[in-house]
């Protein structure tokens, strides 16, 4: 009968419309979070006092990282070279060509090493150096592992404000 086939026609059309809408929303979200800005949840002690160990939600942007406009002092979200599924947040201390001096193993000795940051890499450290795994342990970080530059802290609301180039 005519009415039964038109029911399935309408159902099919509705499903296609919803499918296209889902595809549009998903794509819009993907392009925004991968090419413009994305939120990140930061927890842990390595960025005290800039970030609180019990958790902050920050907003990170992708535009500076894609166009290589990073500077010393920027706080960045990166992919850990020790585990690609982890994305710690650290501060850029040195750019390529910089000479960086650091204490390799604070617990064992005070001996400090000096390294020149190689081409295509940056040197990152947590603000709370006593409890942070960073370039002092895993070496200079290839630029391709930097995901975004942290701009603002958005949660908890009482801490709302920009994350600046100096430790605050």
């Amino acid at each position, binding site marked *: 009968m005519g009415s039964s086939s038109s029911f399935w026609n309408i159902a099919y059309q509705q499903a296609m419309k919803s499918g296209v809408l889902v595809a*549009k929303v998903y794509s819009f979200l*993907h*392009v925004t979070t991968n090419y413009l800005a994305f939120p990140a949840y930061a927890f842990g002690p390595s960025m005290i006092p800039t970030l609180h160990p019990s958790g902050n939600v920050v907003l990170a942007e992708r535009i500076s990282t894609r166009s290589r406009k990073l500077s010393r002092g920027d706080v960045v979200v990166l992919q850990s070279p020790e*585990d690609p599924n982890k994305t710690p947040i650290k501060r850029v201390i040195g750019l390529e060509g910089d000479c960086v001096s650091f204490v390799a193993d604070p617990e064992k000795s005070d001996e400090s090493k000096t390294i020149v940051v190689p081409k*295509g890499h940056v040197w990152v450290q947590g603000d709370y150096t006593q409890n942070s795994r960073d370039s002092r342990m895993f070496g200079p970080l*290839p630029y391709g*592992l930097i995901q975004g530059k942290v701009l603002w802290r958005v949660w908890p609301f009482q801490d709302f404000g920009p994350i600046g180039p100096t430790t605050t």
Partner: protein
Amino acid sequence: MPVAEHHILVDKPSLDMGIQNLIWQVTKKAFTGGIIGITISDRFCSVVPVRGDSMSPTFNPQRNSYLDDYVLVEKFCLNDYKFARGDVVVFSSPTHFKDRYIKRIVGMPGEWISSSRDVIRVPEGHCWVEGDNKASSLDSRTFGPIPLGLIRGRVSGVVWPPQRVSKIG
């Protein structure tokens, strides 16, 4: 008897509106199509040409850029970074992050690689990559093991030219 004449007058302002509307509609569709295309290429798969002969004879067995292979690169592997020795991957160069290379993983974390002078252990979170054509390949033998996070996709097969279509791995 007067014949009613019907003239359909299209005056210039409404013609302009019609064209403006059309341009807007086309732009909207192109924008949406572009965004969906970018998402498909980043999240599902994309087709890229292989340049150079560092992966010969697997890719580009002849040194002729008119006959360069085009391969299908899948992006699902980037959800959990579970790779295996033998995978052919696309990755960002550790020294020039805008450049992309295609090489094969020959060492996974914890494995030992013997290079010209000594034996190297592949660190956690890294992999050792080499081109199939060792004589003409810039790879881990030069720039060391690369972090898995630099990988941008896994090659699943050749899609062009038609006589070389094949699955890899």
